[in-house]
């Protein structure tokens, strides 16, 4: 049996969402039909208003409902230091640490010639411009440890030049992790990046 056209359209559009397969899409579609109308329409209204109101921050390209995002608009944040991430999601993760008080810059992707993504397809020019205009002297690269992440780090550090301090996040053992559960690649990096015990005082 075929679904009525409108139902089929609903199932198919749900199926476009990441992590949603045909079975889940069907389940969600039926729920949306069977639940009280205001509850179902709340979703469509939420999608519409998010699409209308949320835009990239003019300065850092984080999602925002104003010209400047919450972080860029906050006078308490440190200036002169920027943390580069791939996507707005990463900012949320870093903010949870409550350890970083500087600004951010969302690249929007990593270099990947195989996918046709070069320096012009991600926001590298915008970053270089910001570094110049906002007198940023420290750039922290918080990118994936994949090959694409590494290449992007190397490219950025070359473009930023020696007058900017460019660092990237350390790699090693997870906090509270057991040594014997750690894979050998991570363990090898942790070994190479080991530190003197007297430097380990809590900060």
């Amino acid at each position, binding site marked *: 049996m075929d679904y009525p056209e409108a139902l089929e359209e609903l199932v198919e559009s749900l199926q476009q969402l990441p992590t949603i397969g045909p079975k889940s899409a069907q389940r969600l579609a039926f729920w949306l039909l069977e639940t009280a109308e205001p509850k179902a329409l709340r979703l469509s209204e939420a999608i519409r208003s998010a699409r209308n109101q949320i835009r990239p921050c003019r300065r850092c390209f984080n999602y925002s409902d104003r010209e400047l995002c919450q972080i860029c608009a906050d006078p308490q944040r440190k200036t002169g230091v920027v943390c580069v991430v791939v996507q707005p999601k990463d900012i949320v993760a870093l903010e949870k640490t409550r350890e970083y008080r500087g600004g951010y810059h969302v690249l929007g992707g990593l*270099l990947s*010639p195989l996918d046709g993504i070069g*320096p012009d397809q991600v926001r590298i020019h915008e970053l270089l411009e910001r570094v110049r205009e906002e007198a940023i002297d420290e750039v922290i690269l918080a990118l994936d440890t994949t*090959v694409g992440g590494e290449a992007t780090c190397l490219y950025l550090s070359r473009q930023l030049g020696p007058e900017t301090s460019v660092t990237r996040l350390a790699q090693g053992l997870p906090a509270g992790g057991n040594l014997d559960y750690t894979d*050998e*690649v991570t363990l*090898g990096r942790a070994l190479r990046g080991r530190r003197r015990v007297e430097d380990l005082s809590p900060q």
Partner: protein
Amino acid sequence: MRISALRLQDFRNYTFQEVELGAGLHVFEGRNAQGKTALLEAVYLGATARSFRTSKEADLIRWGQPDGGLHLAMERDSGRPRQLTMRWQAQPLQRHILLQNQPVRRLADFLSELPLALFTPDDLELVQGGPEMRRGYLDLLLCKLYPAYLEALGRYQKVLRQKGALLRAQSSRAELESWDQLLVQFGSQLMQFRAEICRQLEPRLTSLYAEFSGETCILRLVYRPCVEHDFGETLRRAHQEEWRRRTCLVGPHRDEVQLSLGEALVRRFGSQGQRRTLALAMRLAQAEMLLEIGKERPVVLLDDCFSELDPGRQARLLRWLEGASQVLITTATPLDLSPEHRLYRVEEGRVRPC
């Protein structure tokens, strides 16, 4: 390590088959296309997660079936049992590996499980084929021995593909240096590992070759890396040329391993008999190294190549095989084996002990 039982279900031409195996020599006899090699293929998959016959995993499932797989009951040299299950699903094509009933998430975790040596008639290509055959030979050995090599090789190949795409697209030349830097980082690791393994391989190979050929010529195995000195500098110098020819010209993906007897390169000047013996010696050396560093005694698979050796070499090979934990041989013609061995007949996807 040895395999105590092999179970196949909808694998190749087998509907369902269980084979009990012991220590020592096992001979699977049968006409062509009856399923002899599929038995060895199943064991090989259990050791490497790859087939030596096909790159299309869908071919492993019995024709028309939704899924198929294999189960290996193994026994360590210590006597401790190990269980390995591999299943393939046809649509969409999926592979599931269970070691001790636990899903295997990283290939590296199970590649060191079952040490194994395989001999096939195609091994001749190790000697007379292109350099990629010999690189593959080193890679297989190194991946089995060192997880760090597996990691570096995977990353090197990813960078190489990205750089290749960049050279073809001719989009941003400034980006090239970043990829080159990574190529140097991972490629240098590969070269170090390869140089070291070649140093360890050569004496072993020389003595194995001498033993099997009875020749007095000295066999030499020399690692010829594509880059002899400063990788980074060589890449910089090749920059123009690479950009113009739109392809990656420099790096360990173009390494060669040179095999020579006396002054002559075996690949170009060796006789058929010399090449065959050398290919055998290379496989034996590989097995010995896995044995030495890997602690467990290996399983040896001989696919249809025993009968191609002359009686003297057969006898020497049998003597060498005494050191293996378990040997599985397939043959189309009856073999005249003096030591104790178990014989099985293979016919139309059925195996029965004789």
